[in-house]
């Protein structure tokens, strides 16, 4: 048996790879997904492909083996991918898989983060969810406090986000605001985290932290960043919701998840619906209507990004707190050059 690297840019490689995966029940070859792949390897026996796997950032994808009983082919592929990732300095790996394969990954050291009826998400490496949670701020007697959680991308932080945080802060002892950490937005993760911190600095019972790899990240919820169809969004959001419910909320004693009402984005709309279905009864869900400006316009970050693109900063005052306005004014040229380079401003 021989392990080879496949180049998906090469038509012949792409074709045998697709054929093999299709035979094994994987058929989503949307260019958004395939474009994200960094490495693909395949195991050959007598010129015939018998197993394959790919690496996209820190996520293992498109894994299939010829004969399901054969642990050794599976182990070779995962070992090889783990070593390739280690060579790039990536040790914390995720895998999305069908629920029935979760055990196979657990046999080689992966830990299950969440499992639904049809899918599972697992991780392995030097920094796992327990390490992430251990680094978050805590308060004394946290188990007796009333605590809420909010997850936001805040691209960028608006008066609408501020309204949501204020609402949660006024109804709870403490609020965790988890800022999405994946970098696929006009404002990068560092900027978004900083602007949420600055915009809520006066609220003493609010902790602003990074959502790490566990909340709406490229690992847990790729469809937030890639265009995907409804079923894909549903199963990914279910896993994302299960991680929040079973791994995060109990450790931090979060009893309520606050959400902003979502009248516009299809993906976020589905996400909200799934959260309402999955989180209760252990975590209750509270949906807050969108904040409006004095002239009754709904505040959205999408609108803000479009105004930046059009170089029309005057109306921003009605949408943004002064901390975000200041940042936008000071970094206008850089933000506009990112838009010119093609970063998507219409998504999330």
């Amino acid at each position, binding site marked *: 048996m021989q392990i080879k690297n496949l180049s998906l840019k090469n038509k012949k490689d792409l074709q045998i790879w697709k054929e093999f995966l299709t035979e094994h029940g994987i058929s989503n070859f949307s260019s958004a997904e395939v474009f994200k792949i960094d490495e693909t390897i395949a195991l050959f026996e007598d010129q015939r492909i018998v197993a394959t796997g790919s690496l996209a950032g820190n996520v293992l994808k498109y894994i299939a083996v010829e004969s399901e009983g054969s642990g050794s082919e599976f182990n070779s592929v995962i*070992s090889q991918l783990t070593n390739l990732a280690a060579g790039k300095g990536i040790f914390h790996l995720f895998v999305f898989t069908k629920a029935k394969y979760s055990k196979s990954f657990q046999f*080689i050291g992966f830990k299950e983060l969440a499992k639904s009826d049809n899918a599972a998400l697992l991780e392995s490496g030097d920094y796992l969810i327990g390490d992430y949670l251990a680094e978050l701020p805590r308060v004394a007697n946290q188990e007796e406090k009333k605590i809420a959680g909010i997850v936001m991308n805040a691209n960028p932080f608006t008066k609408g986000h501020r309204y949501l945080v204020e609402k949660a802060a006024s109804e709870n002892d403490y609020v965790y605001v988890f800022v999405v950490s994946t970098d696929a937005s006009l404002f990068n993760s560092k900027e978004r985290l900083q602007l949420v911190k600055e915009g809520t600095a006066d609220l003493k019972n609010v902790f602003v932290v990074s959502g790490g790899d566990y909340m709406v990240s490229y690992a847990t919820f790729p469809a937030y960043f890639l265009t995907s169809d409804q079923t894909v969004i549903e199963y990914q959001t279910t896993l994302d919701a299960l991680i929040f419910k079973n791994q995060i909320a109990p450790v931090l004693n979060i009893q309520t998840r606050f959400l902003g009402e979502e009248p516009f984005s299809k993906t976020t709309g589905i996400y909200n619906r799934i959260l309402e279905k999955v989180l209760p009864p252990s975590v209750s869900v509270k949906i807050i209507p969108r904040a409006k400006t004095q002239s009754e316009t709904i505040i959205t970050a999408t609108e803000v990004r479009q105004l930046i693109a059009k170089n029309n900063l005057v109306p921003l005052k009605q949408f943004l707190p002064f901390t975000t306005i200041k940042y936008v004014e000071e970094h206008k040229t850089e933000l506009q050059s990112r838009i010119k380079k093609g970063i998507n401003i219409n998504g999330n």
Partner: protein
Amino acid sequence: MEIKKTALAGTTESSDIQITLSKGNDGIDVDLTSDVKKQFGDQIVKVITDTLNKFQITNAKVRAVDKGALDCVIKARTITAASRALNQEDQINWEVL
């Protein structure tokens, strides 16, 4: 000795063991996955810990995925992971180990 960076050695193929070594601050903490953990878990952890001690590593997180490795293999993989984690991969002194 302080771990300088996370390092990995070995595979999860039959008769091998995969060792991931990263910074820790609470002694040597071994997280072992093995089909024979019940029978040989203590011995595997001992080989890893003894080997790390010879490198004077006293704080580390170790993730070990064992697929039935013999002690000599466990030792060899731990040595390689430790050398990589200490940025000493070019100067392994096998004889003292």
